[in-house]
């Protein structure tokens, strides 16, 4: 159970239970949960814990044995299931686009059932394709097999949003997609969600995805018993019991890197920077005046170009237009610390250059910057435990 205010509740599950005939224990046992309007609630747990069953009872793809589902104040446990499902967006891992229909026909499925006129459907399809970042001209008349996996997933999300449902159910929606595309789709979806503010139940088995996507996370044990239902920060800093702690795993601090964004931490703003068109003596002077071991060259739009070390500048033929190390590792302010660390490791640079949306230089983050924020987070955790009197004098967590 949670402390969610009654007035904000969009979905309420009351003693929801699913019993399959011939099985000794229920698959889902008396789940009680209140899901606040406009939030993403992630159901996460080991396979077989009943998280998908729980989610599918909300749109009654699986009929509950007992209990109630209340949607926006209305008991929907017994209403017409098809009409209920048309009010709830549904996205599954395999996406399930209709292969014999064009993208437009796929997205128009529910609007057509509801009898929208052609103009309204056309308008809505184009609008949705733009929302998920696809050009309507290029894509609306294509067939699913003519799209990449990531594009199909976007269409799946657009289709689920076709009649602007208040509630969406997403069952491992990014599970079958390669890691790089998945990362991008997750970020895109969070951007879209920031505008549309749907109430979303999101099922995954991946705790990292849960931490990234969830406003709240419900960690489920077998039979869908809720081990903890709380915002990700709380789950990471104060796991409710051993099951949760085990499920998060040993890398809780690492996972916290997914919670903090680059824009929230203190960047190095004192890196020596020269414009590529400045002369070489200015550059040498600027590097000498700083305590840095390399100098960042930016172009006329302040986009980072290359790092030059003292040896690169010392040569008589030294030129700001060439040589040095190209800047590979750049991140935008909304990237997480995990993204930044990842960039550092991939590019071998030891630091990342932070750029704004147009690619202009904003600052530099290095391992020390990130370590400092991890230390700060640890201090907060210690504070939490101390407040809870769980920490003894040596700083060890007492059991």
């Amino acid at each position, binding site marked *: 159970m949670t402390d969610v205010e009654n007035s904000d509740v969009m979905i309420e599950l009351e003693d929801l239970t699913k019993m399959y005939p011939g099985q000794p224990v229920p698959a889902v046992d008396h789940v009680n949960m209140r899901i606040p309007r406009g939030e993403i609630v992630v159901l996460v747990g080991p396979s077989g814990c009943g998280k998908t069953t729980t989610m599918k009872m909300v749109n009654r793809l699986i009929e509950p044995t007992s209990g109630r589902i209340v949607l926006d104040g209305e008991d929907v446990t017994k209403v017409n299931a098809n009409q209920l499902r048309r009010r709830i967006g549904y996205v599954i891992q395999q996406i399930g686009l*209709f292969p*014999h229909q064009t993208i437009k026909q796929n997205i128009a499925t529910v609007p057509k059932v509801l009898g929208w006129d052609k103009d309204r459907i056309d308008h809505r399809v184009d609008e949705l394709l733009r929302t998920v970042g696809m050009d309507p001209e290029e894509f609306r008349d294509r067939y699913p097999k003519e799209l990449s996996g990531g594009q199909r997933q976007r269409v799946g999300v657009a289709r689920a949003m076709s009649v602007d449902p208040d509630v969406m159910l997403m069952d491992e929606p990014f599970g079958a997609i390669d890691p790089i595309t998945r990362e991008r789709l997750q970020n895109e979806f969070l951007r879209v969600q920031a505008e549309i503010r749907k109430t979303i139940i999101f099922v995954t088995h991946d705790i990292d995805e849960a931490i990234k996507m969830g406003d709240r996370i419900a960690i489920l044990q077998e039979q869908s018993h809720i081990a903890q239902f709380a915002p990700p920060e709380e789950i990471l800093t104060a796991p409710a019991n051993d099951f949760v702690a085990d499920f998060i795993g040993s890398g809780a601090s690492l996972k916290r890197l997914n919670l903090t964004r680059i824009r929230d931490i203190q960047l190095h703003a004192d890196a020596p920077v020269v414009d590529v068109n400045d002369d070489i003596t200015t550059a040498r002077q600027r590097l000498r005046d700083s305590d840095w071991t390399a100098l960042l060259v930016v172009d006329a739009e302040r986009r980072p170009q290359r790092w030059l070390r003292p040896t690169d500048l010392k040569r008589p033929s030294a030129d700001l237009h060439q040589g040095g190390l190209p800047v590979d590792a750049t991140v935008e302010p909304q990237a997480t610390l995990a993204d930044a660390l990842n960039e550092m490791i991939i590019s071998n640079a030891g630091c990342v250059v932070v750029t704004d949306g147009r690619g202009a230089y904003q600052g530099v983050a290095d391992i020390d910057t990130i370590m400092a924020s991890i230390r700060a987070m640890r201090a907060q955790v210690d504070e939490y435990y101390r407040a809870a009197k769980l920490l003894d004098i040596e700083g060890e967590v007492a059991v």
Partner: protein
Amino acid sequence: MGFLEYLAQNYDALLVQSFEHIQLVVVSVVAAIIVGVPLGIVAHRSELLRSAILNTTSTFLTVPSLAFFALLIPLVGIGNTAPILALFCYALLPIVRNTVSGLRQVDPAIVESAKGMGIGSFGRLRGIELPLAWPVILTGVRVSTLLNIGIAAIAVLVGGGGLGQEIFRGIRSLGSPFAPNLVFGGTLFIIGIALVFDLFYLLLGRLTTTRGIR
């Protein structure tokens, strides 16, 4: 008399017989589609009835065609009715079986996503499952048609029409110099009909499936 001379002289009669032949096939196959596709849908949806339906329709195919035709005579008498009934029974199995396997190969995720969008059972069948199973069903119809084009030649033995008349005229006059012409003539036209139907199904398949599932 050479074969070409024979063809030139008997062209009209062969065309009339071809028309009768096509009639036997079309009537029996259309009836088999009307009965077979719904049977296939039932067999797909009901675990209980599936084996009953598939076993019955495949038993039909094991009955020798000559015997089958003869067995029907006491019931419906001499003429085209007995062969049409028998051909209908033969045509059922490929259509029923392909309807079942066409529906079964539809990705369950596609059906589930349709269900999750609130598309009812009938809507899913009409809008999603049958269109996706259609190429396989059409193949079943094509097999039935080709099968019946061959078997229909025996209809003549129970008083039916078709190109069997020409072939059996040849068989009855075996030993005479005309006999091979008659048999070849009938066979040639049967092959011709089969080729025309094959082409027809190829075009029909092209016209009735979207680029998305080709």
